[in-house]
């Protein structure tokens, strides 16, 4: 009986927590399906209206920005390019960095690793102006390259891959060597397949990280052509329902990625050894 009470009590707490998180999102969604005048008169709505298609289509195709040069669709495209670029580039670089740190006889490899690791403590915001001036010097302002590259070296991913490689037994490398594998083949035929789930997890992680960038894209793009979704959240003008619709849509890509690859994500972060 006491077990029943404690378990229903904890369920109750969980339920309240879920409601606290979900209800505001739901209210925004419900409100985004009404007309502006309806919201302006009656406030936020709890139930669905019937302007869903109208509002969402308009937001997607509306020419926004100060110069009316960009649509939400283009922003989604930009964000997608940026997030995918960051994800792929940072996973590739950290895979290779970790490989070099663990398997090559580099003097002071541990020291090097800790230096890389310390960069976790230095937020992007702290180095944003020097980084910007480098990009400006290189003429990479207003380009996808400039959006992606400066935030594509991930100390966290390097840490994860390094720790994983360290658990791979030495005999595996030795027996691969005796089987005629060179260092590149060992990387491609062994380390990559063995860390597959972790790679997927890191891809998701870095995709969301790239997608959520705000300050960096804001600085490095002056042309509206390169606006991203998260920037758009701030910049979008228009009526309240349209902004609500945009907010709702901005949540879709990261959620979609996580739902699709969830299986790997959980496995990669928590079960792989």
């Amino acid at each position, binding site marked *: 009986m006491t077990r029943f009470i404690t378990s229903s009590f904890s369920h109750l707490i969980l339920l309240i927590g879920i409601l606290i998180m979900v209800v505001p999102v739901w209210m925004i969604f419900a409100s985004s399906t009404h007309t502006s005048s309806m919201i302006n008169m009656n406030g936020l709505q709890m139930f669905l209206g019937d302007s869903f298609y109208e509002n969402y289509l308009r937001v997607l195709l509306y020419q926004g920005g100060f110069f009316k040069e960009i649509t939400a669709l283009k922003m989604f495209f930009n964000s997608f390019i940026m997030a995918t670029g960051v994800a792929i580039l940072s996973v590739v670089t950290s895979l290779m960095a970790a490989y070099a740190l663990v398997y090559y006889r580099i003097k002071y490899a541990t020291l090097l690793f800790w230096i890389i690791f310390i960069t976790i403590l230095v937020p992007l915001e702290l180095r944003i102006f020097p980084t910007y001036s480098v990009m400006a010097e290189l003429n990479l302002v207003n380009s996808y390259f400039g959006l992606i590259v400066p935030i594509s070296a991930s100390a966290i991913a390097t840490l994860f891959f390094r720790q994983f490689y360290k658990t791979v*037994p030495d005999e595996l490398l*030795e027996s691969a*060597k005796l*089987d*005629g594998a060179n260092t590149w083949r060992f990387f491609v035929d*062994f380390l990559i397949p*063995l860390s597959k789930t972790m790679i997927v997890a890191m891809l998701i992680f870095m995709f969301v990280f790239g997608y959520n960038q705000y300050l960096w894209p804001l600085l490095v793009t002056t042309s509206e052509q390169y606006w991203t979704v998260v920037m758009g959240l701030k910049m979008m003008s228009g009526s309240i329902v349209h902004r609500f619709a945009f907010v709702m849509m901005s949540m879709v890509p990261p959620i979609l990625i996580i739902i699709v690859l969830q299986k790997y994500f959980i496995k990669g972060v928590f079960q792989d050894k």
Partner: protein
Amino acid sequence: MSFLDLKNVTKIYPNGTKAVHETSLSVDEGEFMVFVGPSGCGKSTLLRMVAGLEDITEGDINLDGKLINEVDPSERDVAMVFQNYALYPHMNVYNNLAYGLKNRGIDKETIEQKVNDAAKLLQISDYLQRKPSMLSGGQRQRVAMGRAIVRNPKIFLFDEPLSNLDAKLRIQMRLEIKKLQQKVGVTSIFVTHDQVEAMTLADRLAVINNGIIEQLGTPIEIYDNPKSLFVAGFIGSPQMNFLDGNIKNKTLSAEGFEIKDIDSDFEGEVKLGIRPEHLSQRENSLINLKVDLVEQLGSDNLVYGQLKDKKDFCYRCPGNLTIEKGADLSLNIENNKYYIFDKSTGKRVN
């Protein structure tokens, strides 16, 4: 020059550990060589230098007429079976066997045929599609062997491949390895610290201690004629009995008895070694044993007890003799089969 030739090979690890001292050794083509010795004596180090997995600090290694000191392991054409098998966990058994062949650029049909042949030989044909994690210890062992065999290398290296198996399987695999090696005829070096394994497998045996080969020879030579105290104590089960003694004028006096007219000019402190199986009961003999414990193995009995001076002693007798605890036995050394070692240097003197 023989097939594999080690000349004054020394290994000093970066931390200063001297694992192998100036070791020279020749292995003939097709020979089954066993390195045996206690833990930490440098067996694995020696083997790994042959494989190319450790740098050679000093000395030369020649394989098949070619100096291989600086040759990369991937180019040496040697195969190694590791203690924990080191199977490729993400590949199925087929690909585990095929991987080395693929790297050599062999075409697909040939690979398939070679893998199937090796699998048949090792009776693992039914598991070719399985991942190593879905195999038993014995099956993994076979896959590891298969991976070595399929490439038809110049030399097989085994580093204690049986030590992860249970006792029964170990004996079975030991037999199979020996049979397989005879069938395939590949030169092999097998590392173990189990002297029974060493005796049963070896064509020739290298007993290693502290980074030095103490004695090299056929198992029987080494058993019959150990050259040092260490080898005498290491080879043979149960262990040889050792008694303190002293030689003067060709007479050895141990505590409680004397042996006259020994075949040695040595004078001074010695250790007398007697194998438990070289004793028999006879009235009024040299050695008097008070029995503490009898282990009945069926075919044999191992009789443990103490001599007059409370020294532990073991006697091996046929299983059909009944010996009671507490009995007093009088034991004779058969055919004068005893060994005398210089106490200070450990060298054999008779």
